[in-house]
């Protein structure tokens, strides 16, 4: 075979030699195609696998860790939550609407492939600055695509995050997380067990969509990738909705052994992964695969990434019943092959073998690379910047108003009002709060969900930034009263073949692992997206954490809005002069520099435990973490959320801008009834936590005094206008 051929598919000479060695012969074109996609970074995790091993993955409540379509955690009563996050960055950069839509479709399929009823979606987005028309086009398309797909499926998109930074301008990030609920007895895994069992394909017909999408996602974006555009798939949420209902009926009637969605690398990946997990093989006749287009070659059929398809291994004798269920839902279901005992993927076309490779050669024998790591040179420059001489603002009210209008902090209602976040009637707290809360019908339980990540912190210190992403997610859950259970993560980075990126990746995973250990939130799965680069450089290293938590009694939940006139405002935790990497520093001083805030994980854990305990005891009327924008922004957000102002009196030696806008970690702002104040203070002191009464709720404005001097007094109206209108106005340009 000409080297040009396999190189174009993304294989190196060494990898090609390895294939020859495994097979003991020259592979044919179809086989090379199968290896190329399965050994791509996207499917094979060849640069990340050794590093991902660092993640803690076990806890008594983790029923399924990494390695399956999605992770599973126990929530009691024989029920479990299934969840996973995935990126669709590259497709969305090329075609934002369809790219984001099919991203939602794909991650939702991972959830019902495990047998779970999907119940919610969250999204984590990164774009360039909003004053760029291209960003507005991308954001409009991405949000529209997520809305189109999720709304049509009848899944509430209950939370998410959106950030704007120049580093994402050419390479936006679109990560979608899906969550499902399951009776534990219904859990299915993606295995093809039972020699002689049929292999069925259900759902959409196969077309020439997205051939080599996986390889595509494993390259930097360039002029050349523009030309590969036809590889972008179009989503059909209507068909996926039918697929969900049909698959859940099939699960409920206990008709399948294993099931897997077809995402990247289509039939190739789903079939060989199912076989490899079971230690079996498969014989597939691709002539039996229903096509949308004429004249497709075996190569095209095997690699097509047509959406809305599932691969099933039925129990013996269940084939007819599965067909009948699919027919009722208007879906095609065909037997395309059977499970074999020889460990081989044998692909036939009308009886002629077109490819024959060991299933495990495609999965487990994917080469693994220990990438060279080097601390990037930029770090010294940005970290050592002296931030002590920055000019102090004159008008703090203006600074706060400006921060509220900064797109990273402004209300994201423009985004989530396009998402149906109420369908399924379980959304007790939707987007806009610290974490979404879903009730579990028929129980007193609630699920709390959040996604978090701060690329700026990770750029300045990936280890700390990674740890903060986990800590902040857990803190968000604590603020609503939930105990965090586990995480799923999406690791968005540049080109791992560059030692600097490999270093960032390793550091971020170390930091996340450390935080997961201490906070007892194991990793149950996730996704790695490398090659997020354009000609102008890599994105900020951006690990995104999706976290699931449990509220044993949903009646004991908390929101972030101030609710009662006269309630005391209590700050748990301490503010340090930490403005490195802050939104204040970026917005007012135009700097992304310094050290991100320090994180003491033991302190973090104690703060969260305290807040949960106080909420469970019914002592708290509002809780909100101090995150980006610092204390001042946290106060404003809680005031706006509740439509109630506050008077705050701070005493401190810190510079006022540091005090107000520092992003010190492990701080949570509480509102408590005056009569409950002492109990909260006592609880905190018992745990050795710093705690301060800083003011009271009331009125229609937010007034802040420091050491007796009024720094600002802003009406809710004024603040609300800046905060609410910023993004709609920018998007309407």
């Amino acid at each position: 075979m000409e080297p040009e051929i396999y190189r174009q598919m993304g294989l190196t000479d060494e990898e090609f030699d390895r294939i020859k060695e495994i097979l003991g012969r020259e592979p044919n074109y179809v086989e090379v195609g199968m290896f190329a996609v399965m050994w791509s970074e996207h499917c094979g995790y060849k640069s990340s696998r050794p590093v991902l091993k660092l993640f803690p993955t076990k806890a008594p409540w983790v029923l399924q860790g990494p390695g399956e379509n999605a992770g599973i955690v126990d929530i009691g009563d024989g029920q479990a939550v299934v969840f996973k996050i995935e990126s669709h960055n590259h497709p969305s950069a090329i075609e934002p609407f369809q790219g984001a839509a099919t991203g939602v479709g794909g991650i939702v399929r991972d959830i019902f492939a495990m047998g779970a009823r999907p119940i919610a979606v969250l999204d984590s987005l990164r774009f360039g600055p909003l004053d760029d028309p291209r960003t507005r086009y991308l954001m409009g398309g991405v949000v529209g695509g997520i809305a189109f797909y999720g709304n049509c499926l009848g899944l509430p998109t209950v939370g998410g995050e959106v950030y704007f930074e120049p580093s994402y301008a050419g390479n936006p990030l679109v990560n979608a997380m899906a969550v499902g609920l399951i009776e534990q007895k219904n859990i299915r895994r993606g295995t093809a067990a039972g020699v002689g069992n049929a292999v069925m394909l259900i759902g959409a017909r196969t077309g020439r969509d997205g051939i080599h999408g996986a390889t595509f996602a494993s390259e930097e974006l360039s002029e050349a990738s523009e030309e590969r555009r036809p590889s972008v798939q179009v989503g059909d949420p209507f068909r996926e909705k039918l697929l969900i209902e049909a698959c859940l009926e099939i699960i409920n009637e206990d008709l399948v052994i294993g099931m897997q969605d077809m995402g990247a690398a289509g039939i190739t990946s789903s079939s060989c992964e199912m076989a490899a997990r079971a230690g079996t093989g498969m014989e597939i006749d691709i002539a039996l695969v229903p096509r949308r287009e004429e004249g497709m070659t075996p190569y095209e059929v095997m690699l097509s990434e047509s959406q809305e398809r599932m691969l099933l291994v039925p129990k013996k004798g269940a084939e007819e019943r599965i067909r009948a269920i699919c027919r009722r839902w208007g879906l095609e279901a065909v037997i395309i092959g059977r499970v074999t005992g020889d460990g081989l993927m044998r692909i036939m076309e009308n009886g002629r073998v077109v490819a024959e490779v060991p299933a495990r050669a495609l999965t487990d024998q994917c080469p693994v690379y220990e990438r060279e790591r080097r601390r990037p040179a930029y770090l010294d420059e940005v970290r050592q910047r002296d931030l002590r001489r920055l000019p102090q603002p004159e008008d703090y009210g203006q600074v706060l108003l400006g921060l509220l209008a900064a797109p990273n902090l402004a209300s994201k209602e423009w985004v989530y009002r396009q998402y149906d976040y109420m369908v399924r009637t379980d959304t007790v707290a939707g987007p806009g709060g610290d974490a979404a809360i879903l009730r579990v019908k028929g129980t007193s339980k609630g699920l709390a969900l959040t996604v978090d990540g701060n690329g700026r912190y990770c750029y300045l210190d990936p280890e700390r930034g990674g740890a903060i992403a986990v800590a902040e997610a857990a803190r968000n859950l604590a603020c609503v009263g939930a105990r965090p259970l586990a995480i799923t993560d999406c690791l968005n980075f540049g080109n791992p073949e560059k030692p600097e990126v490999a270093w960032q990746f390793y550091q971020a995973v170390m930091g996340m692992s450390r935080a997961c250990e201490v906070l007892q939130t194991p990793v149950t799965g996730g996704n790695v997206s490398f090659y997020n680069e354009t000609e102008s450089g890599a994105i900020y290293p951006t690990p995104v954490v999706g976290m699931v938590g449990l509220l044993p009694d949903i009646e004991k939940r908390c929101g972030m809005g101030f609710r009662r006139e006269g309630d005391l405002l209590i700050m748990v935790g301490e503010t340090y002069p930490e403005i490195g990497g802050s939104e204040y520093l970026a917005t007012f001083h135009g700097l992304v520099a310094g050290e991100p805030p320090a994180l003491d994980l033991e302190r973090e854990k104690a703060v969260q435990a305290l807040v949960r305990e106080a909420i469970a005891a019914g002592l708290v009327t509002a809780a909100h973490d101090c995150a980006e924008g610092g204390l001042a922004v946290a106060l404003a957000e809680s005031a706006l959320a509740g439509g109630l102002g506050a008077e705050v009196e701070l005493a401190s030696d810190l510079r006022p801008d540091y005090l107000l806008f520092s992003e010190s970690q492990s701080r949570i702002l509480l509102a408590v009834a005056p009569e409950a104040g002492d109990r909260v203070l006592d609880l905190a002191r018992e745990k050795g936590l710093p705690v301060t009464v800083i003011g009271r709720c009331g009125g229609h404005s937010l007034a802040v005094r420091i050491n007796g001097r009024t720094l600002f007094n802003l009406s809710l109206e004024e603040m609300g206008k800046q905060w609410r209108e910023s993004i709609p106005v920018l998007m309407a340009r």
Partner: protein
Amino acid sequence: MKFGVIVFPGSNCDQDVHYALGSVLGQHVDYLWHGDTSVSGYDCLILPGGFSYGDYLRAGAIARFAPIMPAVIDFARSGGLVLGICNGFQILLEAGLLPGAMMRNACLQFRCQWTYLKVENNATPFTNRFREGQVIRIPIAHGEGNYYADAATLAQLEANRQVVLRYCTPGGEVIPAANPNGSVGNIAGIINREGNVLGMMPHPERCAEGILGGTDGRELFASIVDCWQRGERLGA
């Protein structure tokens, strides 16, 4: 009283309506399959929200040809109570059980939000628990809720008091600023001339319990039950 919730391919609020009627209000409720041809034995039919047939072509356009629809139409013509919510409303319009048509939201985007609604007519089987002019709060979630009817049809609707719900401010003002989708006359819900078929864009099943942020939807469903218990079955 027996409710039937019709399940079209792509319906996605069917389970929510079922839960609100069955578990919250304790009524008897069954799913009815779009491929069936009979609705006999039911006292009220609900066409739920969602994206029947993906809402492809026009929302509700394909669903109205589902095998069950002739039975629904007969049921409605003989005075049976029919409630179309969101996509269900769109199907009723396409089926000609209600006048007018639905267009894309004027903002060209999907909108999910709480809305305030003015009860313009409480003398219906669906709104009798409200006061006339009462302002209620029910969420919407749709991309095609921009109700349109020509001037003559509108005049008739107004003259017959067929406009049942209008988007308004919390204070009850029916003004453009309170209109989330560009709907003519801020119309959120209309009833047929005979008064037994209501179509509404807002989702009452999403506010039938306090934990979801409101209970006005429960009152709407309870109105139907009250009406039926008083034996006010119209027509037939």
